[in-house]
């Protein structure tokens, strides 16, 4: 009897140790030093992107907000919703409140995005680092900052109270027109658009499928630094990334499920047929990416 009592006591202790150490271990795994700070934010710009996800349907135009963080030497651009959903993940990992997160998701409170691209201008020096997602995998490639080969035209006009000057270029299979403000001597803009002698106020392609317009310039109140996460990011060449992106477009359900399995996870919809129909329909309607090709 005494032996059984001692064993039960020891077992209770072992379970206590196991259960109390699990959350600590789990949090430790999620908070390993994954971020590297590249610069402090000096200025924040917000752009509205009006875009047409379906090239065959002019009525499919929707908007999404982009942020541009400008530091001393580096700039960073990302969809605001993409940034906020990543923040939401970090906060939930820290708090452990998964139920709250899932409830917010079901109610549509977690920001949704069509763009997962994170762009670091002048990192490394004179290069652009692009981090983008295909399924569960994050990929990174670099390109030269001077790839855009802007042609500056004498034409000037006024936008948002700024006197802006015209510049044109060809990039990602589209012809682009940018309007930059020489009175704001910052050579940055949204997405990869940069390298002009003034902040880009508006940039649009000649088919009017993508149009970024500056909405606001503010001091950095919420975001203080430009950080990069290079852990678990796969280095790839740009053309390789675009090949993978095309594969996702051709077989979205298969590619997503495969990437989940490769990451060691699993995923199951209750109604697989209906979910597959939705994603195939989405893929058919999302046929017009910002960058059509790798150049």
């Amino acid at each position, binding site marked *: 009897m005494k*032996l059984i009592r*001692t*064993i039960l006591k*020891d*077992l209770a202790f*072992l*379970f206590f140790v*196991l259960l109390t150490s699990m959350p600590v271990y*789990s949090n430790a*795994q*999620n908070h390993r030093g994954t971020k590297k700070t590249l610069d402090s934010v000096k200025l924040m710009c917000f752009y509205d992107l009006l875009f047409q996800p379906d090239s065959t349907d002019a009525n499919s135009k929707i908007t999404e907000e982009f942020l541009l963080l400008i530091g001393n030497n580096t700039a960073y651009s990302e969809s605001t919703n993409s940034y906020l*959903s990543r923040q*939401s*993940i970090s906060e*939930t*990992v820290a708090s*452990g409140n*998964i*139920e709250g*997160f*899932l409830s917010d*998701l*079901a*109610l*549509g409170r*977690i920001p*949704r*995005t*069509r763009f997962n691209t994170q762009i670091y201008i002048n990192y490394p020096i004179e290069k652009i680092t692009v981090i983008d*997602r295909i*399924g*569960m995998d994050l990929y990174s490639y670099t390109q030269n900052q001077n790839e855009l080969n802007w042609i500056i035209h004498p034409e000037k006009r006024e936008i948002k109270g700024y006197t802006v000057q015209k510049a044109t270029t060809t990039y990602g299979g589209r012809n682009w027109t940018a309007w930059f403000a020489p009175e704001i001597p910052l050579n940055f803009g949204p997405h990869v658009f940069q390298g002009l002698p003034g902040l880009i106020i508006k940039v649009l392609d000649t088919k009017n499928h993508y149009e970024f317009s500056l909405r606001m310039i503010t001091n950095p109140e919420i975001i203080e630094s430009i950080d990069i996460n290079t852990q678990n990011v796969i280095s790839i060449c740009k053309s390789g990334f675009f090949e993978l992106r095309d594969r996702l477009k051709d077989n*979205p359900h298969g590619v*997503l499920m495969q990437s*989940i399995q490769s*990451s*060691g*996870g*699993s*995923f*199951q*919809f*209750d*109604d697989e047929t*209906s*979910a597959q129909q*939705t*994603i195939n*329909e*989405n893929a058919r*309607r999302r046929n017009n990416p910002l960058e059509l090709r790798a150049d």
Partner: protein
Amino acid sequence: MRKKILTLGLFVILLLGLAKITTVRGVELDLSGITCIRFTTSCGHPAVACGSSTEQLLNMVIIMNNYYCP
């Protein structure tokens, strides 16, 4: 010594036997390190996602929500 072996043996058997502990509202903890969560996308598709870290699970949920909702 016999007592310690007996205790550890029982501990392992209990761990294997209780491999899954279901907690509230569909968040399921698996002692092998895999957690499963039941959720509904913002467009109404119910689904189950399983993964080994909270970050992996939440990424999965967000990605699937972005791709599978119109």
